[in-house]
């Protein structure tokens, strides 16, 4: 870092060039970091490398603004310190089950920071007053505020503070349309300048975009939540990039752009996994179309008494076992018991695999994180396409708190929210043992025909932690 200090006092041009070179190097570090994060073995290093790049970026920025020449500069250091401490405390205290909420909230406040930067820029602070600066700063405020309110609503739903069922406001489409038009209007006003007072324009922008963030996430239901979180994540990157355009900072523009685009790609990957169209989710189509009743083909064997299954005997003799975890396992905090169960089965000579649906849980990869917390080897976690052919051959499938991701209705119940979603072929398995809270439909609200099976079904209703512990004592 000494070099930077040495070059101080040289002409602006030289230090400009140096700045661009440093920015370029930091961008490269971040790119390598993200690339490393897409492989399990190198992911940890990738994350740390990105963190290091960020640390350098902050130091370089502090040097660039000649921090020690600013009045009361200690306030800036104090703010950095406060953020640092709060961030560390949050990260330290969070339980893995709360990850989705934490990511949502972190996302939201990142968006808020970008919105504030955009707000300053709109008032001509740190940015010019030309059209480009004005329009980009309005955009930064809009996207930043949408990210903030959207993430807070999503986080509230995930945390159970707000009802998690999709809420469809009266005149939802009309309200959305009006808000979108108003957002375009404030952007246009940045050029036309009908509202001369920038402060009033800023306040209007904040109100309109905050409302839009709320109306857009409040109608998203559980099954679409992982995709929404991922999308908001991408948006917070875009907000940063556009704030960067407003204040003319290359590093901010570039890294924000990378995050925005790769976040969008990740969102698309998930959409594909659920066979959903991103636009449909944005417009709330998939979650509101649930009025239609499901017409189930009545099974002929309806009157036949349900065959009792001796679950303990089945588990004791099983050689090939597949475990399907879902959000219920997360709520019950049952991942450690699941691991204990698996260990017992393995001790009995069984081969245990975990089938993880791409959108099981409330955020992408949620189940993987929880199972890893319980020390499950990640080599034993199988993705949907790899494990689906194996259900037929398996002796028993154990379902823990999962419902929608294995609901065969997804194959044929048109008009339901899960229709067309690829599912785990649990119904192909000879014997199924289910640990679920109740027989109510899952998050998506669609009845699961598996529960009406007469053969090879063992049901354990109640808190998965209790029912699992019960079975474990008998094994």
């Amino acid at each position, binding site marked *: 870092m000494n070099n930077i200090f040495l070059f101080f006092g040289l002409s602006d041009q030289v230090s400009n060039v140096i700045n661009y070179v440093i920015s370029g190097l930091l961008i490269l570090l971040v790119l390598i970091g993200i690339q490393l994060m897409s492989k399990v073995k190198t992911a940890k290093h990738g*994350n740390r490398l990105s963190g290091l790049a960020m640390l350098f970026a902050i130091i370089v920025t502090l040097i660039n603004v000649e921090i020690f020449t600013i009045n009361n500069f200690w306030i800036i250091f104090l*703010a950095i310190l406060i953020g640092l401490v709060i*961030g560390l405390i949050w990260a330290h205290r969070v339980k893995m089950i709360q990850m989705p909420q934490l990511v949502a909230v972190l996302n939201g406040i990142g968006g808020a920071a970008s919105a504030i930067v955009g707000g300053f820029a709109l008032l001509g602070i740190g940015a010019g007053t030309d059209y480009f600066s004005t329009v980009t700063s309005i955009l930064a405020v809009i996207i930043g505020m949408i990210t903030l309110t959207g993430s807070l609503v999503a986080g509230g739903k995930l945390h159970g503070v707000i009802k998690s069922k999709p809420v469809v406001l009266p005149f939802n489409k009309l309200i959305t349309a009006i808000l979108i038009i108003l957002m375009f209007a404030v952007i246009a006003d940045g050029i036309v300048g009908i509202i001369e007072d920038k402060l009033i324009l800023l306040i209007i922008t904040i109100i309109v975009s905050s409302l839009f963030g709320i109306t857009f996430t409040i109608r998203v239901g559980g099954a679409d939540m992982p995709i929404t979180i991922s999308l908001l*994540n991408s948006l917070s990157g875009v907000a*940063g990039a556009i704030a960067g355009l407003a204040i003319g900072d290359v590093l901010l523009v*570039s890294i924000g*752009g990378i995050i925005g685009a*790769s976040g*969008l790609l*990740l969102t698309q990957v998930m959409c594909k996994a659920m066979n959903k169209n991103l636009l449909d989710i944005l417009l709330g189509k998939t979650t509101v179309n649930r009025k239609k009743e499901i017409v189930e083909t009545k099974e002929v064997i309806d009157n036949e008494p349900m065959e009792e299954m001796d679950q303990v005997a089945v588990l004791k003799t099983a050689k090939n076992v597949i475990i399907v975890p879902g959000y219920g396992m997360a709520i019950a905090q049952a991942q450690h018991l699941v691991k204990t169960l698996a260990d017992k089965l393995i001790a009995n000579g069984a081969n245990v695999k975990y089938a993880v649906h791409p959108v099981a849980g409330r955020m992408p990869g949620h189940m993987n994180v929880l199972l890893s917390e319980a020390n499950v080897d990640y080599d034993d976690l199988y993705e949907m396409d790899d494990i689906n052919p194996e259900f037929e051959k398996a002796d028993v499938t154990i379902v823990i708190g999962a419902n929608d991701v294995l609901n065969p209705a997804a194959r044929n119940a048109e008009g339901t929210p899960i229709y067309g979603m690829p599912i785990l072929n649990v119904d192909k398995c000879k014997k199924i043992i289910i640990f679920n809270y109740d027989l109510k439909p899952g998050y998506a609200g669609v009845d699961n025909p598996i529960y009406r099976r007469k053969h090879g079904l063992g049901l354990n209703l109640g808190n998965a932690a209790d029912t699992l512990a019960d079975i474990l004592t008998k094994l």
Partner: protein
Amino acid sequence: MELLQYILLGVFLLSTIVGYFLINNVPSLLHTPLMSGMNALSGITIIGAILSTAAAVTTDYEIVGYIFGSLAIIFAMINVVGGFAVTDKMLKMFTTKGDKDE
């Protein structure tokens, strides 16, 4: 528009393209850590927060500048630190037989 602004737009487009191709075939195992890692990176807006605060407090409205500026810095910093720390915590849990032998 000034030259710098054209450059910035170019950088923006280029980065989005690079970003789009960067994440190829990420195993869903890594979706959560990757997302929270990128979430931490989106806190890069901390740079913007520092720059605008530094600019704001040299205007006539030093106090207002510090209030909102500090807020932005605190927010962005929580985003950055919390994001990286929690991602690290998560990734430490991902283990396989091979790792345990080490």
